[in-house]
């Protein structure tokens, strides 16, 4: 069991997952998003390689209206 904090919310997963699997799990695969792990950007090209580990802090962002 691992725990990840995603946009400030803790979530448990049965087994370690990679970023691509997380994106699928969150139903964000069709969305234009960017992800930061523990303060570092994870390039989209590395989503399927990067394995998430217990305690990772993730920020998942989109573009919204703003001035």
């Amino acid at each position, binding site marked *: 069991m691992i725990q990840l904090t995603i946009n400030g919310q803790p979530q448990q997963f049965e087994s370690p997952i990679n970023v691509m699997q997380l994106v699928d799990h969150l139903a964000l695969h069709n969305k*234009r*998003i*960017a992800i930061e792990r523990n303060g570092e950007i994870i390039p989209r090209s590395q989503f399927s390689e990067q394995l998430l580990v217990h305690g990772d802090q993730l920020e998942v*962002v*989109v*573009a919204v*209206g703003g*001035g």
Partner: protein
Amino acid sequence: MDNLVIAGKTYTSRLLVGTGKYKDFNETRAAVETSGAEIITVAIRRTNIGQNANEPNLLEVLPPSQYTLLPNTAGCYTLDDAVRTLRLARELLDGHSLVKLEVLGDPKTLYPNMVETLKAAEILIKEDFQVMVYTSDDPIIAKQLEDMGCVAVMPLASLIGSGMGILNPWNLQIIIDNAKIPVLVDAGVGTASDATIAMELGCDGVLMNTAIAAAQNPILMASAMRKAVEAGREAYLAGRMAKKLYSASPSSPTEGIIAQTEKITKRSASNKPR
């Protein structure tokens, strides 16, 4: 052609608009289209996890293929938050490096924290971002931001969202006179005449959001702002007449006036400029 050039890219519109505070995406799109803006600001925010998976996305409404998106750091109060936000923005927008940096100092006034802004600008420039920077209207700070490599300085005309207009035209004038990079008024414009005044001062452009979005009729205000910025720019280029209290120089010829009564002729003769 009189174009706006920022970081080597040419734009025909000198009006930049934000995309916040609209009723819905249809209104956002209609206002942006009507404004004629080519550069539009967007904010970067956490996505709603587990909700609204099918809600429309701003980038579908205003595609990056059609507009130059300017991700901002609105709401950031530290250089760390601002820098991280723009790194995320660059990843989100496929390596797009033109950004709007703002680091706020106070949630009540939204006045910028220039100490943090200067530090953040330095880091971002080292990382090859092209930084358009929101700044107080301090001419010395504005020059420092230019010297460190920002691609445009964007002084406030008055506080963000206040609609108070151009409160210190003299500081803006000094910033404009000193700058070799574009100067854009960002924040404080409330109505069309404010935008025109900024452009008449010699600003290279105006960035606004609330003035359009919070108007009773945002689409009509977007149209007004487009014209206001164009009018102000043309007036600036045309070079205004000198101001004087009075001139005794009427616009119509003083010769060839039909026969006048003696009384009036006498009076007008004594009024002739010496």
